């Protein structure tokens, strides 16, 4: 019997619930930690970024309008799907970050647990970030957190899967939609995550994943007038300054890069960054 030919995987972008190639037709070589070729990943252009923002904006109404309970259920479903693909992610993380199988396994397990942890916040964040404010008058004065809109997320460069999950989940659980720029050197776990999201009842466009040169894709996202916030986790200090300046143009919320130990238990900081507070007054009545 002849030896079986291997079927190589074509990694593609994840935009609007579909898997397009880059509009530019470009790809770049992705290697493992030792420099061995793993796959070609799409090298997204600024037009891909623009298309992703359009998709994210389109998805925003439905996703932010869904009940918190429903969002939580869908995110939990994502965790279920991740569990089923655990083996694939362990292999990809091990190759990308040069880890042993057991260490990579720990990363993936932590990432799935983190996803579940954030999923639980969907119907609890209002209790933490909202308030019934005492006012000088016969009024109920209630503040509630609302999603800010489309969030551009530059995924961390150093943690290809755990870091990625730790920045996507807090952005979308509250009702935002996201355009994610995968880590430049190790984008494969992010592109595979897109395949998981596509099969988890998550509406198309809520998360969009682009791979390529972080600086090239981030610049149009930072200056884009229809992006409401940007998480600079994956930007180096020089790029971060530049992007923050561009983001000031339409007063985007900016989360500056900071040293984070992705394996440590997170707090609610990321979750609360991409929220706007709405306060309503209502007469208390007799």
């Amino acid at each position, binding site marked *: 019997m002849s030896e079986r030919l291997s079927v190589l995987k074509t990694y593609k972008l994840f935009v609007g619930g579909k898997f397009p190639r880059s509009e530019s037709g470009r790809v770049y070589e992705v290697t493992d930690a030792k420099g061995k070729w793993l796959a070609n990943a799409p090298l997204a252009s600024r037009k891909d970024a623009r298309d992703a923002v359009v998709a994210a904006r389109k998805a925003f109404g439905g996703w932010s309008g869904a009940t918190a309970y429903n969002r939580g259920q869908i995110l939990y479903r994502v965790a279920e799907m991740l569990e089923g693909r655990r083996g694939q992610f362990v292999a990809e993380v091990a190759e990308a970050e040069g880890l042993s199988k057991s260490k990579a396994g720990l990363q993936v397990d932590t990432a799935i647990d983190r996803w579940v942890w954030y999923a639980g916040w969907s119907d609890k964040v209002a209790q933490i970030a909202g308030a019934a404010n005492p006012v000088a008058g016969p009024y109920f004065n209630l503040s509630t957190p609302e999603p800010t809109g489309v969030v551009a997320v530059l995924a961390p460069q150093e943690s290809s899967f755990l870091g990625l999950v730790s920045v996507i989940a807090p952005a979308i659980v509250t009702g935002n939609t996201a355009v994610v720029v995968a880590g430049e050197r190790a984008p494969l776990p992010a592109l595979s995550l897109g395949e998981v999201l596509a099969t988890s009842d998550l509406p198309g466009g809520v998360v969009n994943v682009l791979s390529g040169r972080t600086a090239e894709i981030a610049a149009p996202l930072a*200056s884009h*007038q229809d*992006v409401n916030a940007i998480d600079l986790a994956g930007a180096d200090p020089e790029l971060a300054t530049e992007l923050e300046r561009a983001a000031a143009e339409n007063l985007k919320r900016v989360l500056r890069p900071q040293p984070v130990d992705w394996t440590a238990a997170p707090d609610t900081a990321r979750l609360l960054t991409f929220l706007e507070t709405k306060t309503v007054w209502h007469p208390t009545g007799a």
Partner: protein
Amino acid sequence: MADVTASDSALRRFLHGLPGVDAVGLQARTATLGTRSIKTTAKAYAIDLAISMIDLTTLEGADTPGKVRALCAKGISPDPTDRTTPQVAAICVYGDMVATAKEALTGSGIHVAAVATAFPSGRASLPVKLADTRDAVAAGADEIDMVIDRGAFLSGRYLEVFEEIRRVKEACVREDGSGTAAHLKVIFETGELQTYDNVRRASWLAMLAGADFIKTSTGKVAVNATPPVTLVLLEAVRDFRAAVGVQVGVKPAGGIRTSKDAIKYLVMVNETLGDDWLSPEWFRFGASSLLNDLLMQRQKLSTGRYSGPDYVTVD
């Protein structure tokens, strides 16, 4: 050409004698033209040209005078933050809104186009259609968008359609003694004509009857303007000018929502008809949401930043 409209049979013989449309070739041609890449200064030119060619349209049962006035204000100054933005060509409304639009557009030079003749179905008797037209003209409409009787056309009563267009054309003459007339645009509703051959026949029929413009669709049915159908119209006006020496305008309407689409149409006009038709006088877009997309593209070109729907009006 007068003899071809002398009788029903002569007209039928002429229209059915027109060369058939090669549907596959037509689609391939439009697909090829659609791949042209228009960038930088050419794109800026195309965007401004497209804006100046728009018949900004509101044809809803829920139209109010306030909405029409708001639309007129937008037509005069599409982007208030950038005064270099050109005006649109016309505001297209139902007949009863003509006076409101006319007043709101005073001094701007923007035309008022009114849909008439029992738009969009065209199902009314001829006297009603003529009264509808006269009413809009009397209210000050500069342009009349009429629909043809598709029922008559599809059952082969071509002379009836011809006569109807001719009569409506007569009704476009202003009764103020100036001897001027409103421009007549004839809508075929190509989505209901079934074949490209029919579209070509309808084009010739309308031009023979004296249409100033031929227009694809009402925007009220499932299939509206498509690039192949528009190309049939463009070829018809080209051939008509060659044969008769009269230039007729073209207006695709309905379903053109993005700058990219609009630019594809402009490429088609340029490749088929050349410069002679590349002006608002001879080519129009019937559209409402297209303008916002053009404005966002325009802002992108002038600022270098992608714009968003927050920076254009909600219509």
